[in-house]
């Protein structure tokens, strides 16, 4: 049996051939017959009242099929976009959920808010027509500065949300924390800004909607990380098209990083309008539209204090955060700065008392939601920044202070004071390995050598923990999630022995077509080229919750394992019949059923054939066919952990920060394909470095205009901004899923900002500027920090 892969093999990707030959199929590549093209007129203002819209010239423009405004969607009773996670505030009151119409009715609330939809025979004609729409705006004062959004007198984003406060949420035991601070030997305080980021998947969002007048069925091709969730939301909440009459397909998708989880106005409107005009409609965002309308990420302002005893053991941690929601609530916006942030504030440490207060604010900016890591990078940046600051203040090496406070490997399962129960981990060997790989001991000499050249060298550590593999449905349900977070899998064998693996996870770069095939190949002994992974189509895959939160392998992969177990169980019955043996005596090894202790055997393919051509078959015991379905709901989150160490060199003349070495050592549990895992870590680190040194969504405080609205002004990490990375692994298998895996998609982005910034601060400490720098540490900011008087 050639071409069988094992879990742990470095298998080249099955999907690569089509991507490398230009034969991938992304949404914009679709050529639908008689297709029309949509263009959305965007608000040029951050906050304005729409006093009137005249679409008559646009409607008469060449090639125009239809023009729709907010009045049309309101008249058609198109529902507003929803937020699917209810967060209850300190007093048990649900978050404020202001209306979010797909097309603005009478008020626009951020630059890029949708004002009208034009449908024409070509994209250029649609755009030409949109230019002819006359909108009478009354420009209103806007609030984009998060630090002032909750202040008295700030412009109000929604009339039904007083003071712009979406919720005031807390977690942890405040009294215990206050008591710890009362007894503290030392308290370290920090103020940090977690800068707003724009995800920038390289494929812009796109949608192509079809309506079949004969059947009344709709099909939406869209750039989604979770097509079934898109269908569910559009059906149940927004458009009212029954789920069985709406098919959502997410074909090849060019990256997501969270931004393609959400259900946006554009695909909603394309589906609705396809029914209205009876023709297919396609829309692909310009990058400029992506900047204005893809949900942004991060955007916190935090003050925190940590209490220590005389030995440097953390005794209490208090955190006060304001989180930006933007102008409207995106699909999972409320959960990100609460359950994905507050619950991670214990980090890898035994801090016994933690209290976090998060106030979420509306502003006249693009909605903010999950972006790679979602809440956990914000938590890690805060924890790891304050720990390194504390180490400097009490004169203890930052690695040593971390080790002193790490949860011991014997303490698992470990209940933190912020709700989570960590299942496994062993943190000291990880940091030791990272210190070895980064030659931590030799840093002093390198710093001195740099100083002799007039450069400032610094080294920074970030030891992260994340909760991923989202998630036990009962747990997230109790916390306000509107959906379950299991995953489904179906193993559909064909009579000739090959198999389709249908998964509710979605791959938009992660390589599931390879790694999921590896699991099946390993488990069932089927050659890789006999396995096809199918994802991203609600009409093919039973159901699925999609890909986000590093969940695909831990949850989706586990569902595949469960389905494979069912295949083996059924195959045993068939094999027992074919070999005239007792089912209890059948074992399954390397793709073959054997009668224990004999050389009698039936390969799986033979059992499969028998199941479809059941001439000689135990028809009284089992049904024909070999097609098994499984749903897997995890019993806990998974808890990847690791340590990154970054070394930087700063040119004090220009403020340029160069990353000279970057080490990441991770515990992802078992690894299915090391090549793919390394790629995930590299990409995550690059995004984390981007946040630390380059990227920032900047708004003009006076006008609310997005100043970083293109690659001319939003700094994307490029090849020459980054070094090659040094990676290492330590493994403690996840104890509660069948693969022992933890997830690797977000780790790099979660840990890297603190590693880089701790290095930058360490370098700047040589000139006393370590507390004067925020992310992104751009050359200008570093230069200003060094030269501040």
């Amino acid at each position, binding site marked *: 049996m050639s071409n069988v892969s094992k879990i742990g093999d470095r298998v080249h990707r099955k999907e690569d051939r089509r991507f490398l030959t230009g034969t991938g199929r992304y949404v914009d590549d679709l050529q639908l017959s008689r297709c029309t093209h949509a263009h959305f007129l965007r608000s040029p203002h951050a906050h304005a009242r729409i006093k009137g819209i005249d679409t008559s010239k646009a409607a008469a423009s060449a090639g125009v099929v239809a023009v729709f405004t907010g009045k049309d969607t309101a008249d058609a009773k198109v529902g507003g976009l929803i937020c699917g996670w209810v967060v209850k505030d300190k007093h048990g009151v649900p978050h404020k959920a202001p209306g979010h119409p797909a097309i603005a009715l009478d008020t626009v609330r951020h630059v890029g808010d949708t004002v009208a939809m034009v449908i024409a025979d070509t994209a250029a004609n649609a755009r030409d027509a949109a*230019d002819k729409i006359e909108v009478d705006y009354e420009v209103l004062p806007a609030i984009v500065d998060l630090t002032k959004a909750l202040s008295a007198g700030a412009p109000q984003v929604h009339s039904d949300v007083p003071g712009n406060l979406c919720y005031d949420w807390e977690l942890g035991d405040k009294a215990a924390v206050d008591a710890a601070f009362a007894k503290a030997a030392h308290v370290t305080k920090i103020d940090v800004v977690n800068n707003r980021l724009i995800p920038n998947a390289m494929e812009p969002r796109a949608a192509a909607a079809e309506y079949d007048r004969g059947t009344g069925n709709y099909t939406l091709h869209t750039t989604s990380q979770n097509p079934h969730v898109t269908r569910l939301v559009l059906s149940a909440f927004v458009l009212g098209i029954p789920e069985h009459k709406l098919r959502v397909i997410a074909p090849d998708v060019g990256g997501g990083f969270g931004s393609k989880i959400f259900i946006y106005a554009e695909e909603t409107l394309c589906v609705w309008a396809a029914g209205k005009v009876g023709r297919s409609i396609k829309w692909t965002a310009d990058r400029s539209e992506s900047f204005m309308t893809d949900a942004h990420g991060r955007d916190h302002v935090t003050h925190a204090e940590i209490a220590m005893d005389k030995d440097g053991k953390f005794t209490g941690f208090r955190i006060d955060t304001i989180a930006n929601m933007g102008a409207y609530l995106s699909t999972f916006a409320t959960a990100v700065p609460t359950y994905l942030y507050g619950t991670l504030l214990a980090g890898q440490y035994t801090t016994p008392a933690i209290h976090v207060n998060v106030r979420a604010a509306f502003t006249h900016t693009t909605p903010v939601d999950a972006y790679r890591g979602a809440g956990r990078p914000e938590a890690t940046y805060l924890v790891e920044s304050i720990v390194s600051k504390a180490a400097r203040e009490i004169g203890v090496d930052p690695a040593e202070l971390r080790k002193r406070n790490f949860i011991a490997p014997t303490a698992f399962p470990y209940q933190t004071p912020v709700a989570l129960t960590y299942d496994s981990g062993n943190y000291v060997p990880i940091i030791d390995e990272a210190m070895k790989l980064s030659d931590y001991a030799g840093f002093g000499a390198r710093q001195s050598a740099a100083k002799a050249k007039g450069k400032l060298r610094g080294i920074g550590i970030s030891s992260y923990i994340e909760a991923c593999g989202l998630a036990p449905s009962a747990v997230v349900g109790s916390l306000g999630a509107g959906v379950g977070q299991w995953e489904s899998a179906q193993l559909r064998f064909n009579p000739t022995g090959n198999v389709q693996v249908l998964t509710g996870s979605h791959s938009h770069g992660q390589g599931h077509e390879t790694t999921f095939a590896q699991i099946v190949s390993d488990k069932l002994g089927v050659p890789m080229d006999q396995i096809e992974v199918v994802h991203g189509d609600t009409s093919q895959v039973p159901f699925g919750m999609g890909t986000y939160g590093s969940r695909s392998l831990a949850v989706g992969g586990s569902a595949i394992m469960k389905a494979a177990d069912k295949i083996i169980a059924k195959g045993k019955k068939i094999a027992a019949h074919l070999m005239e043996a007792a089912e209890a005596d059948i074992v399954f090894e390397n793709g073959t059923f054997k009668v224990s202790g004999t050389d009698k055997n039936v390969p799986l393919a033979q059992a499969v054939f028998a199941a479809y051509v059941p001439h000689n078959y135990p028809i009284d015991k089992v049904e024909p066919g070999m097609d098994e379905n499984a749903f897997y709901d995890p019993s806990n989150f998974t808890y990847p952990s690791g340590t990154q160490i970054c070394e930087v060199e700063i040119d004090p003349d220009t403020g340029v920060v160069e990353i000279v070495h970057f080490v990441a050592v991770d515990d992802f549990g078992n690894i299915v394909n090391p090549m793919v895992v390394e790629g995930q870590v590299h990409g995550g680190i690059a995004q984390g470095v981007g946040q630390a040194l380059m990227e920032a969504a*900047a708004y003009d405080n006076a006008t609310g205009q997005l100043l970083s609205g293109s690659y*001319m002004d*939003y700094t994307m990490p490029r090849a020459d901004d980054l070094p090659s990375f040094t990676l290492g692994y330590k493994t403690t298998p996840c104890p509660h899923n069948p693969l022992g895996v933890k997830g690797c998609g977000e780790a790099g982005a979660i840990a890297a900002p603190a590693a880089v910034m701790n290095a930058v601060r360490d370098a700047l400490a040589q000139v006393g500027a370590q507390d004067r720098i925020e992310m992104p540490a751009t050359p*200008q900011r570093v230069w200003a920090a060094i030269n501040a008087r």
Partner: protein
Amino acid sequence: MYDFAYHKPKSVADAAAAVKKASDGKLMSGGMTLIPTLKQRLAHPSDVVDLAGVSDLVGIKVDATGVTIGAMTKHADVASSADVARAIPALAALAGGIGDRQVRNRGTIGGSVANNDPAADYPAALVALGATVTTNERKIAAEDFFKGMFETALKDGEIVTSVSFPTATKAAYMKFPNPASRYAMVGVFVAQTASGPRVAVTGAGPAVFRVKAMEEALAKSWSADAVANVKVPAEGLNSDIHASAEYRAHLVTVMAKRAVAAAG
């Protein structure tokens, strides 16, 4: 992009006539700035006159006095020209650092100087080396050519045909790129010319400018130290999310220092 009428004349004279005839005609050389501008609908020309059909605008001539580059010569060809590298190595290096590889493969010197983007590289070389811009109508000294932000001495229908650079005994260009766009946030070209040292700055202000105080310092002593303490006033310099005027002013000194050191 709005649609337009497209012309591809074979001579400079025909090109000039086509532009003059159009109600709002635009010349296109490499299109590296014009096409993005049109895509953003920031311009709405009635006619676009493509100079790619005018073959005598391409080429590099080097003699004892200097380098003459045809307006339609691509940045990549200037960067890889052994003749330019021998005559004015700093000019070849500057061309090799414009934009990215794909921009250098299409963008031209004529387009760059005629557009006069405040963050373009070539204007610094032209002013520092004391170059002459030749058009279909006249010759214009570089310093008289660059007027202000996106503004030049070119009249309607006037077309840059070549740029002539006198050699310099020493020259170097140092650029601090905008971290996002990679355009010059500050670019300083220093040259020891027949008429003395010249220092030209791009990216920092609304248009290329000379720093006389640095030139005087370099006239006394050609060394990095000579310019290290010459500060440029921040007033009037560009300020944006990437660099304040103060930071740009500081970078002018740093880049000047490095350019002088690189020039040897």
